[in-house]
């Protein structure tokens, strides 16, 4: 027995981790939960019971009311009507702080860690009570004891900024356990984890739940995860509870029907024709790019995309995909190597993109491909406003710009109040449609797409994927960089995996093996 165990440390408040053994999982139930914003009902009369020690999936499309429900439980919103029961007793939760006191915790999709602080500092400062002077020796000892009981480990004394996305996600979960949350809400937990990491983390959490230590509510829109990890599922659509039950009693079709209702979704266009292997369009050779922090370097030894071919680059966010995309877009200057389009050196100038017909659909298009406060019409004309045939124009021809905008808005179904409205007023899906309309108009020889369907609903996703395949069928070379593995598998002729700034795996469509892809994403190669 060590000295520390014999002599109690009276001055310091007891670290929550020390009490964890005594607490058990809690149940949460909403009864007729309703939330209105003005005339809009975001959540209407939703009753869900999440039993203690279970893993419960909350399924729904974007905008279905999942976040609203969860925010009402966590005290970010005050419900307009309805009751909340915690451990079968009525609870009024006025703020996130109240929720924490009752053992409710949430792991957000965006990270709430402080980048320059170490993992240990992040954990300690997240506690409601921290002594004025922090005794790091004692804290470290307690943290080590805590970590010893935890199912997964992360380095404690490195700044969080240096951790990979998956490790940050694990730290977010550890933080909730450290704060001894007994009811854990996970918001799209697998968006930054590899399939194996997801398996590991969710599997271990499920183990804790089944042991009666924890209750888990998992927000997701992936059926695969629901089936793999959850025992119960509740489905929301347009703020209404459209179904619930044991996962084992429901088929994917039934869940999909609850999620999207009766509307039919057009199947993605069929691919027509085979890749033209004799006609490489994009050719990277020994490309090296250093990211903006100057710490991580991305090295692409060789990458070719042929005409009528979709090359999908899979990988967990933050493994060099962004740097690759920015190098191709001319935003980052490569430190070495060569980018060639049609066999000619390519530097990303406007003249080059025009003569080679290179088009981009970057991630977060409102930020990276639009000028938010300029009108829809102006944004749609960025590729063409300054040219008239082969000549550069001096005076803009507003009539032509407006006519182009009107035709694109109609053809691509962009929902906007007017073509004169600022593009920032459009919803995410419509901004994406507008950018797609601009980039896919005219001849396209090379298309570089990053996470094109992030955060969009089923209907928009199907349309946008169809447009990409359509461009491919017309002969375009497409480089698709996506964190959504399903999307990669659906669209690609050839699949590459990036990990730690390198291409570590390549397979063609016919032989694609999810297990092997996942392993390479995780860096096991």
């Amino acid at each position: 027995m060590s000295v520390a165990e014999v002599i109690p440390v009276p001055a310091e408040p007891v670290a929550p981790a020390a009490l964890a053994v005594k607490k058990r999982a809690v149940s949460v139930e909403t009864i007729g939960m309703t939330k209105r914003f003005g005339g809009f009902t975001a959540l209407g009369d939703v009753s869900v019971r999440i039993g203690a020690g279970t893993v419960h999936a909350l399924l729904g499309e974007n905008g279905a009311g999942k976040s609203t429900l969860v925010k009402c439980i966590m005290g970010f919103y005050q419900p307009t009507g309805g009751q909340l029961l915690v451990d079968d007793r009525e609870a009024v939760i006025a703020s996130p702080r109240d929720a924490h006191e009752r053992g409710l915790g949430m792991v957000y999709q965006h990270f709430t860690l402080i980048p320059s602080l170490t993992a240990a500092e992040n954990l300690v400062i997240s506690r409601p009570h921290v002594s004025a002077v922090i005794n790091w020796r004692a804290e470290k000892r307690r943290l080590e004891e805590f970590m010893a009981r935890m199912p997964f480990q992360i380095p404690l004394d490195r700044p969080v900024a240096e951790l990979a996305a998956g490790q940050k996600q694990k730290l977010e979960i550890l933080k909730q356990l450290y704060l001894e949350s007994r009811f854990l809400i996970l918001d799209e937990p697998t968006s930054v984890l590899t399939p194996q990491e997801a398996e590991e983390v969710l599997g271990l959490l499920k183990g804790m739940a089944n042991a009666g230590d924890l209750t888990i509510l998992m927000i997701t829109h992936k059926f695969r995860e629901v089936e793999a990890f959850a025992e119960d599922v509740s489905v929301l659509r347009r703020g209404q509870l459209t179904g619930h039950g044991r996962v084992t009693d429901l088929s994917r079709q039934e869940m999909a029907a609850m999620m999207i209702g009766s509307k039919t979704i057009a199947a993605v266009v069929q691919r027509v024709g085979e890749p033209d292997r004799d006609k490489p369009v994009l050719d990277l050779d020994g490309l090296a790019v250093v990211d903006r922090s100057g710490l991580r370097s991305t090295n692409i030894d060789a990458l070719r995309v042929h005409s009528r071919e979709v090359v999908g680059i899979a990988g967990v966010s933050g493994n060099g995909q962004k740097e690759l995309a920015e190098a191709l877009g001319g935003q980052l200057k490569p430190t070495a190597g060569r980018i060639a389009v049609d066999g000619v050196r390519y530097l990303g100038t406007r003249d080059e993109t025009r003569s080679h017909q290179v088009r981009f659909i970057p991630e977060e298009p409102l930020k990276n491909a639009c000028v938010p406060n300029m009108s829809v019409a102006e944004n749609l004309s960025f590729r063409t406003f300054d040219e008239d045939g082969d000549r550069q124009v001096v005076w803009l021809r507003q009539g032509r710009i407006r006519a182009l905008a009107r035709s694109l808005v109609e053809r691509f179904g962009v929902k906007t109040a007017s073509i004169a409205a600022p593009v920032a007023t459009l919803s995410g899906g419509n901004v994406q449609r507008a950018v797609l309309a601009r980039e896919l108009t005219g001849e396209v020889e090379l298309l570089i797409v990053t996470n094109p369907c992030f955060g969009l609903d089923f209907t928009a996703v199907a349309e946008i994927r169809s447009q990409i395949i359509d461009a491919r069928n017309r002969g375009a070379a497409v480089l698709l960089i996506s964190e959504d593995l399903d999307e990669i598998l659906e669209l690609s002729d050839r699949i590459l995996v990036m990990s730690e700034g390198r291409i570590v795996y390549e397979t063609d469509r016919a032989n694609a093996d999810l297990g092997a892809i996942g392993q390479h994403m995780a860096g096991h190669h």
Partner: protein
Amino acid sequence: MESDIGWWGVLIAVIGGAIRVSTPFLFVSLGETITEKAGRINLGLEGTLVFGAMIGYGTAVLLSEAWVANALAADPTVRVDVRMYESAAWIGVLVAGVAGSIFGVVHGILCSFKRVNDIALGIALMLLGTGLAFYFGKPFIQPVAPDLPAIPLGNWSDVPQIQAALRVNVLFLIGIALAFVLWWALRNTRLGLIVRVVGDNADAARALGYNVNLVRTLATGAGGVFAGIGGAYLSLYYPGSWNEGISSGQGLMAVALVIFARWNPIGCFYAALLFGGAGALGPALQSVGVTQGTYLFNAAPYLLTLGIMILTSSRSRALAGAPGELSITR
């Protein structure tokens, strides 16, 4: 002018100068470090420095005059105690710190409003601070205020230059201590961690239940105290009088110095010594008879600022160690 130590005199004078000149740099940069760690930039510290110099000096002048008059009225033959003068000077330092905190808190509160830019507001406060100092400081240009006491650490030597160089002001020692305390506190106290949290990720700080604007306002206020005291050092010790050209941009350079020091309080101490030494180079060379290019040597701190900025810059890398919420790095 001792000829037997020759060029050594330059080195000794530079070291002595570094100690004398660095103190205001040190105080202002420590104050700015606190402010920037919390996520705001206060360029107004130049104005705070000048105002602190004026009000510290003015307080010391008025107090010492009043006390001496009182003492003489009671007993016309009394010998005035030197400690009376020292107390007046210290009270001047205190008042300068309080005035600085007011400037800082004003900056902090105004920046808490939406769409108020900390840099633009800082420039406004810089001009306001110097303007107010010039306006209220007119009557104090002539009178002589008592000096802050210095500790002679050079008495072991019989070389007068060394003795002069090592007359160290108490504020310099306090500044060093503060640099180390601050360095320790930023990682070992709750307040230190809160300041860093607020400066690095405001959303996360809000999620943890901290009032971001309050923390920043207090941090800016604390920064103002430091700058005010730095100003009092200027007028009450070195150069030791109040005039309108007293700061010559030291407050602004101290802000640059924080970036050079990578937001590390101990780094601020070394950087302040370096800048102080550079500032002493011109006068030191003059003292050994180098008169050519005096103006150029006097510009050494400014050239150093430029040089350091160019040398530590990088075309591709972002600033390492910069608090994530600073408007210059976001």
